């Protein structure tokens, strides 16, 4: 061991600050190769992935924002439609109410007109029936009167005495009626 240390010490006469030119060469070449590989492959690959990831994240955020905007637009539209529908419904209800009133008024008017018409018709019918009755009565009375007169006249022609009696009776009746009235 002592010998080893001594040999190391004598070996250490070389100045540690003086480089071995071949070691420098190896480091230079090795580092150049490493730098080339890193520049050519490693950094571009990592950077590409970083960029892709950033894009994916930012794209996701943009997509989410777009979806949010779409959702709020849809909500707005839905609200608008709801308001429109409500207005429409109100309008329709108002119209229906107005129409109903109109229809009711029309019906009332029609009914009144109908009843008036029916009444008038009845009146006319009654009048015409009365007229017909009057006409037929008049004709019948005429016939009856003529027949009666004929009969009376006929009897008088055949029997003076009976006609006298008839006249007497008639007169008596009249007298009785008068007497009765006088009493």
């Amino acid at each position, binding site marked *: *061991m002592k010998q*080893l*240390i001594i040999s*190391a010490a004598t070996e250490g006469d070389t100045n*540690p*600050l*003086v*480089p*071995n*030119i*071949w*070691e*420098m060469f*190896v*480091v*230079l070449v*090795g*580092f150049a*190769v*490493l*730098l080339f*590989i*890193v*520049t050519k*492959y*490693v*950094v571009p*690959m*990592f*950077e*590409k*992935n*970083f960029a*892709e*990831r950033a894009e*994916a994240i930012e794209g996701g955020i943009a997509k989410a924002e777009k979806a949010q905007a779409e959702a709020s637009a849809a909500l707005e539209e839905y609200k608008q439609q709801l308001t429109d529908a409500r207005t429409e419904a109100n309008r329709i209800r108002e119209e229906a109410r107005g129409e109903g009133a109109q229809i009711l008024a029309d019906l009332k008017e029609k009914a009144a007109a109908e009843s008036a018409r029916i009444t008038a018709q009845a009146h006319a019918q009654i009048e015409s029936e009365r007229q017909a009755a009057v006409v037929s009565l008049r004709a019948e009375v005429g016939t009856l009167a003529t027949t009666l007169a004929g009969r009376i006249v006929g009897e008088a022609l055949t029997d003076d005495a009976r006609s006298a009696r008839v006249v007497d009776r008639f007169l008596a009746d009249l007298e009785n009626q008068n007497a009765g009235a006088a009493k």
Partner: protein
Amino acid sequence: MHLPAILPWGAAEGFSKQMLLVILSVVIIATFFVIAARKQQLVPGKLQYAGEAAYGFVRNGIAKDIIGGKDFIKYVPLLFSLFFFILVNNIYGAIPVIQLPSFSHVGGAYVLAGIVYVTWIVIGIKKNGLKYFKLATVPSGVPIYILPIVIPIEIISNFLVRPVTHSLRLFATMLAGHLIVMIAGSGIEFLVMQENVLLKGASVLVLAGSLAMYMLEALIMALQAYVFTLLTAIYIEGALHADSH
């Protein structure tokens, strides 16, 4: 301590264990991140998540925070490669059997600091033209009679000392950590070999101390990778926005 030269290749020592580890680190990092990044899904799996967390740490925690602006992404590959290259090569020092942080050999640290040095100067000139050297050395708002002192200081600190400190900081911490672990290991071995029971027992203290140092070293290994990358980002940012400093 060192593997013997693997091949009788090159000038002095041949193909060393350190060189093998550097090449291995490139394979490890490239394989891991290419696999983690290849099967990309919007919802990441475990491996992809780990890869993205590591990538995001450098991209957002260093590049974006320090350099900022729109074009920080241009410098992410350099910062990312630096961070994981240094991290893996440092962590070697904490792995039993391997136990050799690559940057405890100063050459690698010189190379990386040199690459960064050239990079930020080129960026500064590209961005500001040759006026960049004036912007980098003449601070605005300094009274004119102090300038003769300030300008040399700025030149020395920015263009001479900066790459040296940048490389030596990494190298020195790694070498020191490596030495401490090795010395502790040798110390334990030495004490255990002693005849005296008390000395044998004292090895337990060294073991406890070396474990604490080991933990501290592991922390420093990660921290130095971060510091080196952070400083790189700060230098690049300074070159980009030299006119506003």
